[in-house]
């Protein structure tokens, strides 16, 4: 590599300004060279006889200067250019990019309006997409019921294992700790009124009605929606889904039905496990902290807490399961060809699923309050 940097030397001749360049005209010296050639004068001559090395960056600076001189109505002449430099200069001159104008973009209130409109349309399209996938799942389920042979039992069992069985430890631990926390917090508050024993009602109602199933659904959304999106998305990326279609396999029956069905079957069971573990954690903490014996806890639980609480809790499970499954599968199918979009869709699936589960839970609360359950 040449160590002699760029040297310039300005002179005057009868024909006009002479710019003498010598040394290396490479990308390393481009900034200096570009600075030297900033001011176009009329019909200058560039003397290249001292140039030791020239690359496309150097040639670009010359060609670009040429353009500016031409725009000012002059012509640029070269002196002492080597054959290689001429060739390179010619190639670069021909390849000089012609910038195309940016497409006009609106600004001000119109742009704001347009952006808002686009967002609204995107949101509506997204919701419609989710509904479409829900419909596809139901249609696929009906088709499978009519033609049981098309049903993929092995896939269903594998997904049940993945979605259900493998989630049991984390769901149990989470519910147990929630029970412990509720008992502890409830005890300190209720002790002020001497109503420690109501901690049983507090734990039972909050775990059975709300927290057990809601937190289970949130954990499953984080675990499973992302897994669905990643699995389906990477299949989409590698055109496996297109291959499936050409082989006469329906992605809905092959991919969506076993996954969402597994969630539908497993989420209520996980919710029930969470309920039991939550009560267990609460009972343990009440015993240690408040001295409420397990048998007393049981008696109060059975006497004061209506079974409707359990029903009100678990009835939400299938709805949450549908939300998580449909969001996960839909996001997977939105993955485009690049790795970036796979990551984006996976995280968006988790956020959407958790958000939708919480919204659904709020709607359930209002509904139950209205019907008095």
């Amino acid at each position: 590599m040449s160590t002699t940097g760029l040297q310039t030397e300005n002179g005057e001749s009868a024909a006009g300004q002479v710019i003498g360049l010598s040394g290396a005209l490479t990308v390393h010296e481009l900034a200096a060279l570009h600075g030297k050639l900033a001011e176009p004068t009329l019909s200058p001559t560039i003397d290249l006889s001292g140039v030791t090395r020239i690359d496309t960056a150097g040639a670009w600076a010359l060609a670009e200067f040429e353009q500016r001189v031409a725009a000012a109505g002059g012509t640029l002449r070269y002196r002492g250019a080597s054959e290689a430099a001429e060739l390179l200069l010619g190639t670069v001159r021909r390849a000089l990019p012609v910038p195309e104008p940016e497409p006009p973009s609106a600004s001000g209130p119109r742009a704001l309006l347009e952006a808002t409109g686009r967002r609204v349309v995107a949101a509506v399209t997204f919701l419609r997409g989710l509904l479409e996938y829900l419909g596809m799942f139901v249609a696929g389920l009906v088709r499978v019921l009519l033609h049981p042979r098309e049903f993929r039992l092995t896939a269903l069992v594998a997904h049940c294992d993945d979605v259900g069985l493998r989630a049991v430890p984390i769901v149990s631990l989470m519910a147990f700790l929630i029970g412990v926390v509720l008992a502890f917090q409830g005890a300190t508050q209720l002790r002020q009124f001497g109503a420690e024993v109501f901690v049983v009602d507090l734990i039972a109602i909050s775990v059975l009605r709300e927290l057990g199933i809601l937190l289970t659904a949130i954990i499953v959304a984080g675990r499973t929606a992302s897994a669905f999106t990643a699995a389906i998305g990477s299949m989409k990326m590698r055109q496996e889904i297109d291959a499936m279609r050409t082989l006469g396999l329906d992605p809905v029956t092959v991919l969506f039905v076993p996954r969402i069905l597994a969630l539908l079957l497993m989420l209520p069971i996980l919710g029930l496990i969470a309920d039991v573990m939550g009560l267990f954690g609460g009972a343990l903490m009440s015993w240690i902290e408040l001295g409420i014996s397990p048998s007393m806890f049981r008696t109060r639980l059975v006497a004061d807490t209506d079974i409707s609480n359990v029903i009100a809790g678990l009835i939400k499970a299938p709805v949450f399961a549908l939300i998580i499954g449909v969001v996960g599968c839909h996001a997977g199918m939105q993955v485009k060809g690049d790795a970036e979009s796979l990551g984006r869709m996976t995280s968006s699936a988790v956020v959407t699923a958790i958000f939708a589960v919480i919204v659904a839970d709020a709607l359930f609360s209002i509904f139950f309050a209205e019907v008095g359950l």
Partner: protein
Amino acid sequence: MTTPEHPGARETLIRVRGLRTQFGSHVVHDGLDLDVYRGEILGVVGGSGTGKSVLLRAITGLDTPAAGRIEAFGTEVLGASPEERERLDQRWGVMFQDGALFSSLTVRENVEVPLRRIPDLTPELRRALADLKVSLVGLPYRAGEAYPSELSGGMRKRAGLARALALDPEIVFLDEPTAGLDPIGASAFDSLINTLSEALGLTVFLVTHDLDTLYATCDRIAVLAEKRVLVTGTLPQMLEVDHPWVQEYFTGPRARLARGAGRSDTKPEAE
């Protein structure tokens, strides 16, 4: 075996001696020697699994061979210090099979990545140079703003070449540049390689399966077989090599077609 050798009149850019690469107990190369001379377009051919791409990866330092010496521009590649390595990286460019563009960046930003290493380049100059490289490889101006996933396979390869050429390397390594391109796109790519090599004084190390590319572009061919470079030489010399695989490769039905269609005046070695 006859190995048509060159008189050492030309500058050797890359010198590989006694290269041995293996994966576990599977030996890919054993005692492989190869020279790449300045200014030539060297085509590396060989059957599937003879380790053409492995050789490319070994020379560029992506894989570490089990034994042997690799010298590039007079620097030992294997024992290079980080500074030497960085200097080497600026003197060669690699185009991977599918372009290997960074998918989160636009084509222009991809080309700008190597340019960021030049300390006093302003963003405007960097952008202008990237635009020039994009146009130099024959992509339309708008392609610079596109993301790799929005481009066709041929355009991605061109964009990969633009990135490999960003720092004006002295040698470019091309891994299967025409694989997966339609014949028109492939022959356009061939002539692009020829033009660039001539105009920029590039040395090209080209791994290929494509006989048409060999006929259209390569000055010299190296055949990989039996775990080493079996023979190097010009195309006419290849036709006279007495080895079953080389015979089959260069005189098979596809080769005859390519020869008929390809450049008839295959460049004799100008020594």
